[in-house]
């Protein structure tokens, strides 16, 4: 079973030079398995961005599944811990203050077109992350002032302020390295350095990728990957159960019995930091009113939500989407369900006679239907009338999210810094609750620059408490992931697939 990281992710003092050894060289010695013994890996994804998907890793509408196979990043998380480990960069170090970070690149990395990866490509990529239209990581990389490339395999980041956990930022799953000059073609060609090469891109249909046998980390364990777009979640489960796809992570607890008599499938329940939640816009009425927001927090029974929506497969969260076990995470909830207190807050907010609000939702994340209905029921006890407005799943992100005052949301797990900066820093492009509090931003800056772990933790936790108490997001739980996979698959990591090493997954050709 996957475990939460035991070690604090960035416990080491940043002043220490962090040198990471090269990956073991045996990998390169391993015989390349004959192509015909490797099978075709099939899995599914659901429509998220209404057909606007592209292969630009930092685009709001990026088509994630192939991107993770086509491109590499400088650092990746270790298999079961969220610690940055070398990938394209074989090592990194910072100066004493943490303002200048130097990354050394591998010299055996080639793009799919055969050209070698050099520091110029990284510099180009950083520029892309920062300046591409609507780049979703422009915010977190905002601390990068300039990039130097002293030689072909060295990249120096000059930051505007000390950032102790900079490798965590670099590890961002979207911070993929592109070949110099490859944008905007990249949106369709997907030409990167990753373990798979793009064969056909068909967002609404089947996207086919073939193994990049020249991959620097060794040839992938499967010959071909087919990513199927299956909009209807139910259809996806049926397809899995019927063995048409090799694994699916879109199951819910209720599907488990369906696989009771399927010996060729294994069900894994993987704890994750993924979460669904309710977002109130803090900048516009009615939720610019703090009392009202707090009243909303007070009506929620998190454990009940978890039990009802996920049959208890998950972990209660206190409005924070930080991976459980993260050293900075505040441990306990400050809110208990309390209808009287909620009613009092409502009255303070000027809604003594009750309050009515539209909650926008869609068939995007599988637990939303349940969550909205449960919330509706719980809120009704405090005199809050919730009208559920169902919009189409494809239009949700464009038409409801970040537009309507009260919407559903769901995110994948993030580190503390990512979570707080990406979703709550003022002006952030994904600041869905329009959280704009200067003190909060100051706390984040202070935390980033703080060398001392305990103090840093204090800053981070203060910011978290602020969100928990006053913020616009209600996050009831972290969902456990229910995965059904064919038993013949090998090396399927027991973690969320965002961080999986796809080239290690194996599937023999005779597994159908």
């Amino acid at each position: 079973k996957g475990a939460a990281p035991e070690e604090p992710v960035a416990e080491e003092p940043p002043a220490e030079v962090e040198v990471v050894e090269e990956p073991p060289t045996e990998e390169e010695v391993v015989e390349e398995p004959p192509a015909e013994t490797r099978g075709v890996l099939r899995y599914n994804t659901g429509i998220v961005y209404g057909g606007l998907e592209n292969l630009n890793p930092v685009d709001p509408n990026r088509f994630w599944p192939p991107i993770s196979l086509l491109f590499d990043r400088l650092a990746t998380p270790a298999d079961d811990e969220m610690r940055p480990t070398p990938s394209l960069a074989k090592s990194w170090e910072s100066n004493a203050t943490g303002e200048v970070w130097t990354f050394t690149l591998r010299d055996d990395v080639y793009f799919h077109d055969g050209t070698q990866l050099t520091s110029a490509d990284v510099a180009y990529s950083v520029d892309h992350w920062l300046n591409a239209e609507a780049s979703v990581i422009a915010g977190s990389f905002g601390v990068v002032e300039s990039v130097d490339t002293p030689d072909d395999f060295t990249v120096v980041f000059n930051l505007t302020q000390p950032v102790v956990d900079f490798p965590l930022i670099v590890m961002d799953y979207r911070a993929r390295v592109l070949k110099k000059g490859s944008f905007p073609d990249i949106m369709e060609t997907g030409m990167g350095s990753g373990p798979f090469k793009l064969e056909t891109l068909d967002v609404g249909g089947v996207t086919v990728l073939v193994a990049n046998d020249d991959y620097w980390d060794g040839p992938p364990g499967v010959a071909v990957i087919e990513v199927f777009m299956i909009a209807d979640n139910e259809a996806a489960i049926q397809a899995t159960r019927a063995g048409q796809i090799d694994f699916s992570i879109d199951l819910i607890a209720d599907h488990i019995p369906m696989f009771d008599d399927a010996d060729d499938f294994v069900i894994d329940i993987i704890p994750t930091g993924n979460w669904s939640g309710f977002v109130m816009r803090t900048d516009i009425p009615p939720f610019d009113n703090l009392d009202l927001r707090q009243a909303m927090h007070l009506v929620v029974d998190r454990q009940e939500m978890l039990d009802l929506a996920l049959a208890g497969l998950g972990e209660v969260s206190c409005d924070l989407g930080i991976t459980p076990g993260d050293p900075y995470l505040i441990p306990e909830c400050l809110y208990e369900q309390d209808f009287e207190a909620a009613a009092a807050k409502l009255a303070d907010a000027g809604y003594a006679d009750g309050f009515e609000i539209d909650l926008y939702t869609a068939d995007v994340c599988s637990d939303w239907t349940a969550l909205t209905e449960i919330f509706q029921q719980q809120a009704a006890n405090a005199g809050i009338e919730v009208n559920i407005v169902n919009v189409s799943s494809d239009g949700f992100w464009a038409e409801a999210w970040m537009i309507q005052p009260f919407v559903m949301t769901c995110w994948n797990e993030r580190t503390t810094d990512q979570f707080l900066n990406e979703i709550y820093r003022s002006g952030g492009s994904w600041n869905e609750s329009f959280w704009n509090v200067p003190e909060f931003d100051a706390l984040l800056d202070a935390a980033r620059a703080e060398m001392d772990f305990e103090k840093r933790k204090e800053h981070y936790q203060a910011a978290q408490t602020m969100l928990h108490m006053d913020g616009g997001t209600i996050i009831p739980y972290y969902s456990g992931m229910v995965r059904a996979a064919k038993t013949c698959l090998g090396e399927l990591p027991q973690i969320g697939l965002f961080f999986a090493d796809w080239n290690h997954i194996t599937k023999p050709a005779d597994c159908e």
Partner: protein
Amino acid sequence: MTLVAQSVEQPPRTKRRSPLAETWDNLRKSWAGMVGLTLIVLHILIATTSPVWIPRDPLEMNAKIRTQAPSAEHLMGTDKLGRDVFSRSMVGGRVTMVVTLIAISIAVVWGGLLGIVLGLVNGRADELIMRFVDALLSIPWLLIILLIVSVLGTKMWVQALTFGFTYGILTVRVARAATLDFVTSEFVLAARARGERKRTIVIKELIPNVRDVLLVDGAMNWSWMLLGFTSLSFLGFGVTPPTPDWGFMIAKNREILGVQPWAVFGPVVMLGTLIIGINLFADAFAKALGLDRSQGAPV
């Protein structure tokens, strides 16, 4: 033989009854029609009274009893949120029935009137409007409904109006065809020759005769509409929670079909019996009225 003797005619062979009463007599003799009528009446009774007698609160969630199989306590088991499927199935038709019934009334009235008037006018204007009707008919019904609903939202009146409008288009054709049968009939000619106004002809001569066709057509359209409305729920534009609704229940509980089939079967059985009831009734009703029910397009 005298002339006066002529009034000594035989007493009437049948008991004197209005055509409506006769229709009812005929209907009563068809078991299928009676089964259909019973089903419909039963459904209406359930819809109106169920909130009073259902065993559980259909909204009450309970994490401890999620997706349970049927038991004495929960006749059709429970759904994902631990709610009683039986209770929900019983009350789940209320909105659907109200919306579709309003919609079908709208459809019959507007489609019927337009059709009758077109049939009577039967000239250039008729040609032109019929082209529009044909055109509207050629556009996929789902498109029309989705377009309107996705813009105006899923409020009940929007749905009722949308369905009323869309299905009314079908009725226009039916009403017009039925009217054309009567417009050349001699009793309409007689009324025209008398100098009756168009309005009187429509109200007094045509509507009473086209009425039967429209009623049967309306009944059939009602059953199509019920299916259409469930499809809307399937696509996420139907009834919104917390109101229990068949379509929504079917669509959402599909994912636990393999685990707790009753969560789907419950509402399906309810919806199915209603639609079967309507179909049986409409068939028998048409037969009782002496209509030939070559059904139109199954929209």
